[in-house]
């Protein structure tokens, strides 16, 4: 971390600060200044930090991305937006890091449920936010989190009260339209006791370099059921950081499906803390080609007994692309009867592609069932032969198996419209020729 770069972002801060929301909230101003101090001291994470050892973000320091002006919604190509928008869903649009009421579609939302821009929510429900903000992730986690707390310009606030359910999915559509833009959003999702929701985070951007840096804190109440999807299809010149930090109360169910297809350099954090008998599912698929670098970092902490976690991440890497998977499962001393399984599978389609994978189990309890497995390699020859013995020629068999390898993760999507959207994105980006939708 060069002192020069730190000062470049930090030096800009005074100019930016007056535009940030919550200036009238002393507690928030205090947190922002603490986060700023943390960031000034440490900067963005460096490969010297264990959790960042395969990912070098120094390009972000050099580029000095700046908050973009928010264009009038009339200037936005709505057709382009619609290609990524779910229609049978409520949707929120965050345009260059700012909530756009005009582009969002929230008609018919149940009255008890709040979906607001974060700035608006800070004005309307500051006490509630004060209670939750920074509870699922500390600014000391790493430089991006501290940066986000100091810099966030807006975001989404979602509150589903106890025993309420969202009958349709809610989509949070993050859009960046300007070159060299910095879009820093902070999002808060609260599903209270026995509430139920499906939420889809989608990241898209114009064909240029920009930095999208989002932190989402998620609270899943006792017995609540939340599924969070992330579709990251940023521009292939873009830099992306997106963290989802989840606190699960007892008996809560949380599932996360992470589709990381876009960006020149993209990093996701998905961290979940599990209370008594809660259930956590983390699925992921990363597809990289050209010089893409896609890093996924997961952490599941079993704090209490009887919780279950299942994790499966798959990667398909072509050209000179690099995929990183770091998965940590921590079982606390108190977390007896934990049942946990973590798997990471990678297919390399070219000799220059690279997969770095590091599963870590840290177990402090003595009566648990924990497993993990990792593969990096080529297709299973038994499967190739099986298809050949069923008349399929070898090349098609290989294409089919590669595609099927990836498609297994797409198949897990329960929202039909989202399934088709992700499948479309996958087909578009799929490195191998001759892939057919009919195989499914």
């Amino acid at each position, binding site marked *: 971390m060069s002192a020069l770069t730190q000062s470049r972002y930090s030096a800009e801060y005074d100019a930016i600060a007056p535009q940030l929301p919550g200036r009238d909230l002393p507690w928030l101003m205090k947190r922002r200044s603490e986060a700023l101090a943390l960031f000034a001291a440490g900067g963005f994470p460096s490969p010297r930090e264990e959790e960042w050892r395969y990912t070098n973000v120094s390009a972000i320091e050099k580029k000095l991305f700046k908050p973009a002006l928010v264009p009038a919604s009339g200037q936005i190509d709505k057709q382009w937006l619609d290609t990524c928008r779910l229609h049978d869903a409520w949707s929120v649009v965050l345009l260059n890091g700012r909530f756009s009421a005009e582009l969002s579609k929230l008609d018919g939302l149940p009255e008890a449920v709040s979906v607001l821009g974060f700035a608006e929510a800070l004005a309307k429900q500051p006490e509630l936010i004060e209670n939750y903000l920074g509870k699922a992730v500390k600014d000391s986690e790493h430089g991006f989190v501290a940066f986000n707390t100091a810099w966030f310009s807006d975001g989404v606030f979602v509150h589903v009260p106890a025993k309420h359910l969202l009958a349709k999915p809610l989509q949070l559509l993050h859009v960046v339209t300007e070159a060299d833009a910095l879009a820093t959003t902070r999002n808060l999702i609260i599903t209270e006791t026995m509430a139920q929701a499906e939420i889809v985070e989608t990241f898209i951007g114009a064909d240029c370099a920009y930095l999208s840096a989002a932190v989402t804190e998620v609270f899943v109440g006792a017995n609540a059921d939340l599924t969070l999807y992330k579709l990251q299809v940023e521009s292939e010149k873009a830099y992306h950081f997106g963290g989802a930090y989840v606190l699960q109360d007892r008996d809560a169910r949380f599932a996360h499906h992470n589709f990381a297809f876009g960006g020149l350099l993209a990093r996701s954090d998905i961290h979940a803390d599990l209370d008594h008998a809660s259930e956590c599912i983390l699925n992921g698929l990363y597809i990289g080609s050209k010089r893409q670098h896609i890093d996924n970092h997961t952490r599941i902490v079993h704090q209490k007994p009887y919780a279950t976690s299942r994790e499966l991440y798959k990667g398909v890497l072509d050209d000179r692309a690099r995929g990183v998977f770091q998965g940590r499962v921590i079982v606390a001393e108190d977390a007896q009867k934990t049942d946990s399984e973590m798997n990471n599978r990678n297919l390399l389609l070219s000799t220059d592609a690279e997969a770095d994978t590091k599963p870590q189990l840290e177990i402090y309890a003595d009566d648990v069932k924990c497993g993990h497995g990792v593969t990096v390699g080529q297709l299973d020859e038994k*499967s190739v032969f099986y298809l050949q013995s069923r*008349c*399929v*020629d070898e090349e098609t068999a290989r294409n089919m198996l590669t595609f*099927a390898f990836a*498609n*297994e993760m797409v198949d897990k999507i329960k929202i039909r419209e989202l399934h088709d959207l992700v499948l479309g994105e996958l087909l578009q980006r799929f490195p191998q020729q001759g892939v057919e939708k009919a195989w499914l």
Partner: protein
Amino acid sequence: MLSIENLHVSVGDKPILKGINLEIKAGEIHAIMGPNGSGKSTLSHVLSGKSGYTVTEGSVTYQGMDLIEMAPEIRAREGVFLAFQYPVEIPGVSNIYLLKAALNAIRKHHGQSEVDAMDFLTLVKNKVKLLEMDEKFLYRAVNEGFSGGEKKRNEILQMAIMEPKLCILDETDSGLDIDALKIVADGVNSLRSPERAFVMVTHYQRLLDYIKPDVVHVLAHGRIVKSGGPELALELEEKGYGWLEAA
């Protein structure tokens, strides 16, 4: 239909088959029995074209063609079918798609047009009923999460759709309970015809109670050490393989 002459096969430097001679005519059912390690599975793999085996001597002629020279998919399109001992799970590829792809590949190979979608569905549904399978299996990924019995039934379903001329059943009875075995056997029996031959590779006699073979061969140490009628299988059941292996 199939003529195997003095077939020698090695895996790496290790000879497994040491001079197999076998003549199979259309309409016949041959059972190949033998102890573990005798080369039974190697024989079925070599016939279907699995890689990793070297033919060091001899020949295999199928309907006048040199079978060893043919790619596995060409053999399959020409009517050689292997029902696997351990059918492979293929997550992400639907069962019905694979059935359709296989059938169309065979039709294309023989200069016919692709099957009509409605005709295909009717055909598949009839076969599914025959094998007492749930139609839902068609829309699931190939063999994924199927029980042992369901996987074997799925193999027979593929066979019923592909209508091969030479069917090789590799330890089809392994892992089947008696009810599943009956269903699979009924499926096989329904496919018996004067134009079709079967090679059943099996360790135990019990499959032969349900599918009556014309000829039984005993394979030991890479050679056929004895051939006979169905009564040979009963003798093996009683005496085991020891008396033949020693011979």
